[in-house]
């Protein structure tokens, strides 16, 4: 199944099913929230709408990671950094939208700057009052960081666990930096108290539903884009790099260029996920940079199943749903469950739930065929 153009990526069976389920579910939730009165048992609360929107952002983030890990073999433990950077770009726009409605009522400065006795807006905050500029930064900041970082790393052939560790160091360093008040991003507390986006109040149900739909559109778009990318010649080369980098290099491919390209695209997707995430949860703080977040994200992809794209989405939604349930019912057990999940998935389910489902289906179809799945798993 080779997709060489965008239309096939959009119309093949997997894509149709995925997009159908995604938009169907979002549509139902949206209608149940907006049209069904609150007293009715069928009403979906706006909390659930935002929660679902949050899951979709996580799913987009997982998709981005799957693109580099599943298809290119780069285990990035710092993807949370790109997510958070996109989130901060959006957060800065939302802060500027507060205007003089902050606690201190300053016409331009956000509350935390007034609190720190700052006289004027730092230069890098200029322009964020425009939505267009902010959206550009949502893509540009993570993209440029990934490009520079990847250019340095891939050019000198940093691979495997080394790469994983330095990506982790990257997000750790960013976390420490963002915790500082002097950096001008609100320090420990981050950016919060948002009022409205594009003139629509963030408290309105309709805005929440619109954000949910926007997240679904972004996820669907990213899914189609990723399927298209992996189907092109370039995507095929990326997979060749994953499976045997030296061989691909000896065949004349500049492997570092392919890796850099896919890494940057993935970082931009992660940034977009962060930007959609922030208005729905109402806060962005340096905790998003914590290495734990980035590594948790890896387990979503692992649970779903690598190199399938929809597996990453399923994994992200399932694990996060589990987290919501667990932390509500018995918070102290969540880390046990998460830790157990890491171990169980890597030891027993190297292909994730999707791989498990596939092999079960195959076994059903040809009862005596042995499971050959394990023989050609990606390194």
């Amino acid at each position, binding site marked *: 199944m080779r997709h060489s153009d965008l239309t096939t990526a959009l119309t093949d069976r997997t894509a149709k099913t995925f997009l159908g389920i995604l938009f169907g579910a979002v549509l139902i939730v949206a209608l149940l929230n907006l049209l069904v009165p609150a007293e009715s048992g069928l009403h979906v609360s706006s909390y659930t709408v935002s929660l679902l929107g949050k899951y979709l952002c996580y799913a987009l983030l997982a998709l981005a990671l799957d693109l580099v890990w599943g298809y290119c073999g780069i*285990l990035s433990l710092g993807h949370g950094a790109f997510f958070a950077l996109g989130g901060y770009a959006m957060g800065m726009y939302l802060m500027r939208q507060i205007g003089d409605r902050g606690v201190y009522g300053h016409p331009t400065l956000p509350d935390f700057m007034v609190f720190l006795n700052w006289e004027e807006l730092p230069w890098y905050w200029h322009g964020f009052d425009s939505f267009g500029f902010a959206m550009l930064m949502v893509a540009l900041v993570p993209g440029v960081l990934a490009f520079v*970082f990847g250019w*340095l*790393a891939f*050019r*000198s*052939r*940093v*691979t*495997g*666990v*080394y790469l*994983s*560790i*330095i990506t*982790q*160091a*990257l997000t*750790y*360093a960013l976390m*420490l*930096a963002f*915790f*500082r008040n002097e950096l001008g991003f609100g320090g420990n507390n981050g950016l919060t108290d948002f009022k409205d986006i594009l003139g629509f109040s963030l408290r309105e149900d309709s805005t929440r539903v619109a954000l949910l739909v926007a997240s679904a559109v972004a996820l669907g778009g990213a899914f189609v884009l990723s399927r298209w990318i992996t189907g092109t010649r370039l995507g095929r080369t990326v997979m060749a790099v994953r499976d045997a980098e*030296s061989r691909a290099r000896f065949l004349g491919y500049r492997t570092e260029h392919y890796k850099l390209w896919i890494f940057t695209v993935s970082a931009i997707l992660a940034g977009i996920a962060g930007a959609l995430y922030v208005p729905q949860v109402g806060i962005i703080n340096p905790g998003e940079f914590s*290495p734990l977040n980035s*590594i948790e994200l*890896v*387990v979503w992809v*692992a649970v779903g199943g690598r190199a399938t794209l929809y597996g990453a989405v399923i994994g992200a939604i399932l694990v996060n749903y589990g987290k919501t349930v667990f932390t509500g019912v018995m918070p*102290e057990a969540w*880390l*046990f469950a*998460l*830790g*157990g*999940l*890491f*171990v169980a*998935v*890597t*030891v027993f389910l*190297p292909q994730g739930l999707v791989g498990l489902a596939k092999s079960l289906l195959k076994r059903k179809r040809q009862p005596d065929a042995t499971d050959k799945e394990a023989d050609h798993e990606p*390194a």
Partner: protein
Amino acid sequence: MPRVLLLIFMLLGASGTAVAQTSAAPADDAGQTTMASPEGEDRPSESVAPGVSKEEALRTSLAKFKSRDFDVKAEAIETIARSGHERGEALLQALLDRELLHDLAGDRIVLGKQSEQGWALRDPISEEDVGSAEARAARPVIINNRLRQQIRDLKSVTALANPNPLARREAAQRLVGNTDPVVLDALRARQAEEANPLVKGVIDTALNIAVLRDPASQLNERLNAIDAVAGSLEPAVRNVLRDRLAQSDAAAERNAADRALKKIDLRTERYETADTLFFGLSLGSVLLLAAIGLAITFGVMGVINMAHGELIMLGAYTTFVVQQIFPDGHEWSLLVALPAAFLVSAVVGIVIERGVIRFLYGRPLETLLATFGVSLILQQAVRVIFSPLNRSVVTPEWMSGALQINPIFSLTYNRLYIIVFALIVFFALQLVLKKTRLGLQVRAVSQNRGTARAMGIRSERVNALTFGLGSGIAGIAGVALAQLTNVGPNLGHAYIIDSFMVVVFGGVGNLWGTLTAAFSLGIANKIIEPMAGAVLAKIMVLVFIILFIQRKPRGLFPQRGRAAEE
């Protein structure tokens, strides 16, 4: 280096005076204000003289404390200190501690401790129980700051005769800058007979400062004094020189003071550098301890053990538990904690290896994830068992305090011991790897697993043992870290990224590389810290390593040969 020599001199001096002192001991009643030996011949007559009269003199002096006049009290303090009575020092201490009372009912001066019923009274000289008094029927003898200072000075003067040169030096140091004529007389007397060069140096400084402070001193006296104190690091010297620079009307003196101050600044700067280096080394040795176990497991098996930090944490908690088991054994319980921590962490490590990592060889990224899962489980388990709050471990007496090299430079013992301990662990590990059969097998497997197996090495067993060894060292690191920081569930987490940076920076599979990396990162961190702040220093070091790895992806000391190929 010269410092070390001086220290040795001092110790030699110590043993010398100690001998002299014991021979003079029978005559000397616990070394009171009177100075040591030369007047030995006079002494017997003094102490043979009926104790009663001496006691009576003391009682007379004590009675003066009934007065409200501070001058009378000052006189009493003076006479008590000079009485040479063995109770003198204890009584002055009691006065400082507000335990010397005026018993209003019996109109006498007694010792007393406050109890629930009132005061439990004791005789000031015989310490016999002399009954009790209502809370209001007695009140502590009141002293003011001047008297307090007087008592402290007198105590320091007394301590100048202490057989231990360290105590003498401390006493002299306390008296530096003091211009009280009584104190100066005592210092001069001591200066004449002091044999230990370090103590003598401090006394000289104190006397020279007195000369500079004395308005009646001659210009050439002052110039000599300035020359003599130039380079001394006592804060009092700097102050007096500044004053002379500002107040003196002789140009020669101002110049001399200026020169001396410059010299002091230079020396201060040098010691500040030494201080930074020391802190860097101690941070480096913490990093070394944390990273060295990781270096083995990563180097030998190519396995990233994200649970390494939690193995360190287990070691720290073992220390805590051992201290709970032996509540009275703070001084020696570390000796129990070390092997216990090694065992606990090693066993957990072997369980991790046999239970999880064994199934994941050849898939380093999956190993990373699985061990991360293990680390979460261990962390949470500790939270459930010991509560999420930090626990504190008691530092034994011999590890607290500091080795005071000079007034501005001291080495804290716990950091000093950690540096030594880290090096011991490092060399012990080198020894294990170089001299034992296990070490040989470990090196063989790390160089070429296939060939090692072909030579009959059971690589599975070597894996498990290596992992146990690396984990056990993590446990030992935990014992050391417990002395420096709080013991909490996040202890390990804080060190894991740093440890990886050290291993990767130094080059995988090379313990010397790990050593170099740990110390250079530690020192770099401490050099940047005062300039940029702790957080920024950390960020800068991280960014530096990220850039460094891009230049040299295999670290400072890459493994050569085929083993380095993928």
